C-alpha cells in the first residue's frame, strides 16, 4: 500500500505544477494590477511599487522566482495586506473554513445516513417521508436563498443567533445548517440505494438463513458495502467544503478561504490567488487519496494497484 500511495503522490506533482503554471499566467494575463484603485497613482509611485514587489520583471523571471519560493513553501507577501504573508492568510483561512466544512459534513452524515437507512428499510413510514421531503427541499433550494431565509427566521425575527460574523460558537450555527442542507439529501439517497442493493444480495440471504440477528446483518454485512458510494462521494465533497465555500462565506461574513479567494481575485492579489489555488488542489488530491484508501479497507474486492 505504501508504494501505491507514493505512486499516487508522485503523479500528483506534475498535476500541481500544471495547475500552478496555468493560474500564474492566467492571473497576470487578466487586465488590472494589484495596486490599482479608483484614484490613479502617479507613474513614479507605481514604478516604485512594481520594483518593490518585483512586478517590473518579465513574466518568466517572476515565474521562476515564484517557483523558487514555493519550493521553500514560501508563498510570498500578499499584495493586498503588505504586513501579512500569504502563508499566514492561508493558515488563518483554513482554520476558519475547515471547522465549518467538517461540522457541516459531519452533520450531513449524521442525518443523511440514518435517514437513508430508514428510507431503505421503511420507505413508507411517515417520519421517513417527511424528513426525506425536507432533505429534498434542502438540496433543491440554492444556499444563497436558504441562508438568508434562515437568517431572517433565527436572527432577525427570533434573535437567537447572530446573522453573520465569526469568532464564537454561536456564529457556526447558521452557516453549518445552510451548508449541510445541500448534502443531507445526497447522502441519504446514496445510503438508501446502496443499502437496498446490498440487502438484495445472496450473501445477505445466506446470513439470514444462518440465523444471524437482523441487527448484525444490517450493521456488519449490509451497511459496509452500502456506504461505499457515500465514501467515494466524501473525498471530493470534503475537499471543497474545507477549502471554503464562496457563497456561504460571503452571506455570513466568514473570513475563510472562500472569502479570501474572491477578494484576491477582485484585487488581483496574485500571490494570494496562487496560494489558495495550490492549497485547494493539494486538499483535493490528498482527500481523494484518503477516500480511495478507506474504500479499499472497507471493500475487500478493491485492491491497490
Amino acid at each position, binding site marked *: 500500500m505504501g508504494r501505491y500511495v507514493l505512486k499516487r503522490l508522485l503523479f500528483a506533482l506534475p498535476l500541481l505544477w500544471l495547475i500552478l503554471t496555468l493560474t500564474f499566467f492566467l492571473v497576470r494575463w487578466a487586465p488590472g494590477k494589484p495596486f490599482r*484603485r479608483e484614484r490613479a497613482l*502617479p507613474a513614479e509611485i507605481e514604478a516604485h511599487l512594481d520594483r518593490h514587489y518585483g512586478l517590473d520583471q518579465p513574466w518568466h523571471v517572476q515565474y521562476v522566482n515564484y517557483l523558487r519560493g514555493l519550493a521553500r513553501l514560501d508563498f510570498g507577501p500578499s499584495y493586498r495586506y503588505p504586513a501579512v504573508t500569504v502563508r499566514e492568510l492561508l493558515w488563518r483561512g483554513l482554520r476558519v473554513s475547515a471547522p465549518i466544512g467538517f461540522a457541516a459534513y459531519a452533520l450531513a452524515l449524521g442525518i443523511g445516513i440514518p435517514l437513508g437507512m430508514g428510507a431503505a428499510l421503511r420507505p413508507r413510514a411517515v417520519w421517513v417521508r417527511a424528513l426525506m421531503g425536507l432533505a429534498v427541499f434542502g438540496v433543491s433550494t440554492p444556499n444563497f436563498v436558504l441562508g438568508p431565509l434562515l437568517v431572517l427566521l433565527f*436572527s432577525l425575527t427570533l434573535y437567537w443567533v447572530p446573522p*453573520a460574523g465569526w469568532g464564537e460558537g454561536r456564529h457556526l450555527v447558521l452557516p453549518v445548517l445552510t451548508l449541510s442542507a445541500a448534502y443531507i439529501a445526497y447522502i441519504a439517497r446514496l445510503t438508501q440505494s446502496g443499502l437496498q442493493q446490498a440487502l438484495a444480495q445472496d450473501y445477505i440471504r445466506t446470513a439470514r438463513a444462518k440465523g444471524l440477528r437482523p441487527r448484525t446483518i444490517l450493521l456488519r454485512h449490509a451497511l459496509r458495502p452500502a456506504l461505499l458510494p457515500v465514501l467515494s462521494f466524501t473525498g471530493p465533497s470534503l475537499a471543497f467544503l474545507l477549502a471554503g465555500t464562496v457563497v456561504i462565506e460571503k452571506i455570513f461574513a466568514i473570513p475563510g478561504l472562500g472569502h479570501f479567494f474572491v477578494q484576491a481575485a477582485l484585487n488581483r492579489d496574485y500571490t494570494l490567488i496562487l496560494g489558495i489555488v495550490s492549497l485547494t488542489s493539494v486538499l483535493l488530491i490528498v482527500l481523494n487519496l484518503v477516500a480511495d484508501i478507506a474504500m479499499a479497507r472497507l471493500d475487500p474486492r478493491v485492491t491497490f494497484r
Partner: protein
Amino acid sequence: MERLASITVGLLLLSACAPPAAYFGKIEPPEEAVLRVGNGADPASLDPHRAPGSVEEQILINLFEGLTEYDPVTLEPIPAVAEAWEVDARAMRFRFHLRRAARWSTGRPVTAWDFVYSWRRALAPETASPNAYLLYYIKNAEAYNTGKLKVRDRRTGRFLRDEFGRDLLLTAEEADRIRRGEGSDAEPRLQRLRRRLEGFVWEAVSLRAEDVGVRALDEHTLEVETEVPTAFFLKLTSLGIYRPVPREAVERHGRAWTRPEHIVSNGPFRLVEFTPGRRVVLEKNPLYWDAARVRLERVIFYPYDEATTLLNLYKGGEVDVLVSGLLPPYALRLLRRTRDYVSGPYLLSYFLLVNVRRPPLDDGRVRRALALAIDRERLCRRLLAAGQQPLGAFTPSDFHGLYPRPKGVAYDPEQARRLLAAAGYPEGRGLRLRYLYNAGALHAQIAEALQAEWRRVFPQIRIELIAQEWQVYLETVRLGDFDLARRSFSADFSDPASFLDSMLSTSPNNPTGWRNPDYDRLVQQANAEPDARRRMALLARAEHVLLEDMPIIPIYSSVASFLRKPYVRGWHANILDRHPLKFVVVERTATAFDLQAVTRAR
C-alpha cells in the same frame, strides 16, 4: 447570485418591517464601553503612509494623532499634538508648538523630530506612498518624492520658477535632452522648457530628504515651509499621511511594523488585533495625553462589504454604527423612515468622464448637448433614495458659501437638440457612443436611466452600455478606451482644489485627454494665492473654464448616509465621513439613554 440573495432578504425585510419612525431592529447597548463599526472593507495597511483610502483612514486616525485633529462636526483643525501654531502673512511658513505631554504608547515623548522623520519617510521614493501627492504643498516635497530635478541659476544660486511661480521641475531625461539641444516641435513641453532656460547658466539639482521643507527648531517646535503660499495648509495636517510614525518600530520591523505585536502609536487608541476578513480591534491607549477624555474602552471595526449582511448585523444588534455608503439601495426608502437613519452633505461628485480625444466627443457641442439633455432632478428623485442632489458643476458644494461655485449645466432639451443638430447629428442620428461603467447595481441603474434620458431628447441616438469588472474597468479607463465612463470622486480635504486639481493636464486622474492651459494656469495661480477670497474666485474661474469645455458631465452630488443606534453619541454626519473616536460615547446608563422612553415614544 449575491444579488439574488440581497433581493430575497430585501423583500422579506420589507414585508416584516416595523411602522415608520421607529428604531430599526434590536436596541441593546453593549455591556461595556465598546463601539462596533461596520467599516466596509479590510484595511489594506495601517501604516499612515501606505494606507490608500478612507477605509484605512477611518481606523488609523484613531491610532495616530497628527499635529491637528478633525473637529467631529465641522472637520476644521483643532489642536492635537500641536497645542498652538503660527502662520506668517504669506502663508508659506507654519510654526507648530508641540504639546509636552504627547507620548508614544512606549512612553517616549512625541517630538518635532518624529514629524520630520515621518514626513520625510512618507515622501521617500522607497516608501512608494499612494498618497504622497497630498504632501506636495511642502517645499521640495514633490521633487524629492518623484525624483525630479530643480533648476538652479548658477549666477544667483536661486531656483528658476515656472509661469505659476512654482519652482521648475524637470525629469533627469528632460534635463539631458535640453542640454543636448534635442526636442522636436512634437514635444511642446520640451520646447517650452528650452525657451524658459535660454540665457541662463543653469544646473539641474536633485533634492534629498534633508531638503524637504520641514524642520525641528527644537524638541517641541516644528517649522514647515511650503512651496508656494498655501492658505489651506491647516486643513491638510489632519490627514492620515501627515500623522507621525514611530521611527524605532518602523526601522526594526520593516513592513511588519503595523502588526499588533510590533505597533507603536500615539493616538487615543492602540491596535490590539487585526484579523483579515474578520475584524480590527482597538483599545483605549492609557498613555494618551488626553486619555481622560476618551470614553470608549474598545472599538471593533468589521470589514464586511456585503450591504445586506451588514444591515442584518445592524438589525440584529451586532453592529452599532455603519460608515457612510454601505446601505443597500433597495432598502433605502424603508431605512430613511427609521430613526437610526442619519444623512448630511458629503463631498462626492458622480460624473461622466468624456473622451475628448476622438470623434464625436472631440466636438464641444456634442459634449454640451449630452450634458444639457439630462434631467438630473428626475434621475435623483426616481433612482437615488438617499437624498442625492442634482449636480451641474464639478464641485459638489459651495463650502458654506465661501466658494462662488459656477452654476454649471441644467436641463435644457431645446438647446441640447439645437447643439446636436448643429454638430451634424440631428435627433442624434448617426451618433453612437460607448458608455463604460463598473458592474454594480447602482451604476447599471444610472447608466440605463441616462440612456433613457438621452433617447428621450435625441430619439436616434445609440448608446451602448458596457459593464466591466472593477479592475478591468480601471484599466480600460486608464487606457482611454471609452466614449463616456462613469466616475465618482470624493475630496481628500474640504476645499474645491481637492476636486479641481484632479483635472489638471498633469493629473493621473484625468484620463479624458482634455487639457486646457487656461485651466491649468488658473488652478495653479489659485493654489499659490495667499488671500482666501481671491483664491476662491480664481478656482471658480477655473471651474467655469472646465464647465465651458465639458470634459466631464456632472450627474449628482452624494450624501453621507448611514445608520446609528440611539445609544451612540458623537458620531456625526460630516462632509468627509471622518469620525474621530476620541469624541464618541456609547451611553449605557438609564438616565443618559432611556431605552424604555425611546421605545414607548414611538
